[in-house]
């Protein structure tokens, strides 16, 4: 058994076009490190240089947004499905101002 990971269109350049790949690990952080071994560069699109989850993506373990599960510390188990989606956001406000107001 492994963890099934669903890859969004914008990141399929890292997976040779694959929509779904398999990985392993006990936490989301472990899983992303494991995946980066097979698909170099993928992790850097999901995790900031400071080590946090990038605000431009949503990651889910089964049906739950990992932001509600401890973010990168979220536990994952064999048989789980991890889904990565691009966060859909924006607006008339400048990014820096929006980040300051929203505390992100």
């Amino acid at each position, binding site marked *: 058994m492994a963890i099934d990971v669903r890859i*969004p269109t914008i990141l399929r350049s890292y997976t040779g076009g694959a929509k779904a790949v398999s990985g392993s690990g006990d936490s989301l952080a472990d899983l992303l490190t494991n995946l980066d071994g097979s698909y170099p560069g993928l992790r850097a699109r999901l995790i900031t240089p400071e080590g946090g989850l990038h605000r431009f993506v*949503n990651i889910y373990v089964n*049906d739950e947004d990992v932001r509600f599960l401890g973010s990168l510390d979220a536990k994952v188990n064999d048989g789980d499905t991890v889904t990565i*989606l691009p*966060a859909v956001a*924006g607006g*008339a*406000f400048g990014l820096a101002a929006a980040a300051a107001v929203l505390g992100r």
Partner: protein
Amino acid sequence: MLTIHREIIEAIVAHARRDHPDEACGVVAGPVGSDAPLRHIPMENAERSTTFYRFDSTEQLRVWREMDDRDEEPVVIYHSHTATEPFPSRTDVSYAGEPNAHYLLVSTRDEHTAEIRSFRIVDGQVSEEPVQLVDESMDPMRSYQKSGDPHAVQSFMFGQSPAAVDYECQH
């Protein structure tokens, strides 16, 4: 070029008007690879803000899975600007994560005339594209095409009541 049914644009404008002065957002799904936006899905703006929008992450997962099950993709991703022009902000560009999508912006800054413009946003590069409205009657003579010149004024009149547009049935 974005080719889209007039009824869907009217439903999008109605959604933007309803949520004004907050920004409204949503998706128009279509069969994978078809470039045909056919199924309008208004989304919650989780930020409920006049200057920012974000799809609710749980709703987004549900909607994206549903599209996957139906062999659909997000052909159009739209949102409104409620006090400024319908042109992608730096925030919009930095978040644009669907390279195959048409990014449709609606401005509701004018009470009577909604402005719509469509863009491709790939690798941080914004390019405007023409919008062709098609009537459900399929009569090609009734379609309208606007220039893709980024300096052209692309305004569409939506002064009529959108009362006949039942976009809430999509849920």
